[in-house]
């Protein structure tokens, strides 16, 4: 059986403050979510200010699949390796190096399979396009216009 206890004013005040903080935290999260959803994001696009680090063989009709890669993320490299194995003349599979403020070292770029390799020097992927998940695959047409994104499941 529960025990009914007298609740001191201090404890009651602490309770109000505590539950108030929970409600405030949820409200802040909701406000962040609403702001994020309402923001108008730019559509991704290949070309400046992105910096090309390794070009693909030119092809007027090829589409480009770019994997968002952080060089420190093993999952991203795994996705890029698996996809680049399926690269064809009409589909170029490469990487967009993101969340890397300094220009990647040549050895880092050389370790990445596929082409083209782009570097997002201004962090547009996160700040202007609103994308946030490493390893996602973005599709672009031959003129660098964004078509769609897809997700490659984690290897078993």
């Amino acid at each position: 059986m529960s025990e009914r206890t007298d609740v001191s004013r201090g404890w009651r005040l602490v309770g109000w403050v505590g539950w108030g903080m929970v409600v405030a935290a949820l409200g802040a999260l909701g406000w962040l979510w609403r702001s994020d959803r309402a923001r108008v994001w730019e559509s991704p696009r290949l070309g400046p200010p992105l910096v090309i680090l390794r070009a693909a063989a030119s092809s007027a009709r090829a589409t480009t699949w770019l994997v968002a890669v952080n060089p420190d993320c093993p999952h991203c490299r795994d996705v890029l390796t698996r996809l680049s194995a399926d690269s064809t003349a009409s589909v170029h599979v490469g990487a967009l190096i993101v969340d890397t403020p300094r220009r990647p070292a040549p050895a880092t770029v050389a370790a990445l399979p596929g082409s083209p390799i782009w570097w997002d020097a201004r962090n547009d992927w996160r700040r202007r396009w609103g994308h946030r998940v490493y390893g996602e695959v973005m599709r672009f047409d031959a003129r660098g216009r964004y078509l769609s994104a897809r997700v490659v499941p984690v290897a078993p």
Partner: protein
Amino acid sequence: MSTSAIIPPASASPTDRRSTRTYAVFLVIALVSWWEAAYRQGAGLGGERHLAPALVASVMIVARVLASAVEALTYVLWWRWRGERLPYARFLVALLALSIVDRLALSLAAWATRAPSLAPWIAPVVGPHVLGKDWLHGQAGLRAAFGSLGVLTAARVGLTAWVQAAALRRRLGGVLLLTCGAWLLTRIALWWTVDLLRGRSLLP
């Protein structure tokens, strides 16, 4: 079964104490079952990341116990604030034992993955997430938050409320309202958090 057998009062009778021991047995079964599931998941992760499956499983179990501890503490503090004392340790044991319902849901979901033709039949029990990525496509936050809403989740929430009502000697209705409200708020927080984490990226 008497509701008072779930969390016996401090002045418990020998019968109530035996019931508590029975309940503790369910706790052990639940923990062993979770450890086995976590070990298998850890074996999958460990091969890729060079981690011992037992270590991964142990970390997962500790995380589960901590999550239940926080859940129990939240309810205990709520009732304490309302001037009623819900025994923390006993309630925590009850919550951990009830997690066997979640474990059952996990097993059924894995079954649906192995036999997709059964998924439409299993979905009402474990939630629509077993229907695959097409369900709420592009709405990863909503899927993560409410994809597990099924009969078993309803049972878990109902039993959590029942355990409290029994311990506090209160009517089930009000406690059930509180428990459903708490569940809904955590799901909404999860929905918004997943959406904020993914931005405009897709999630599997």
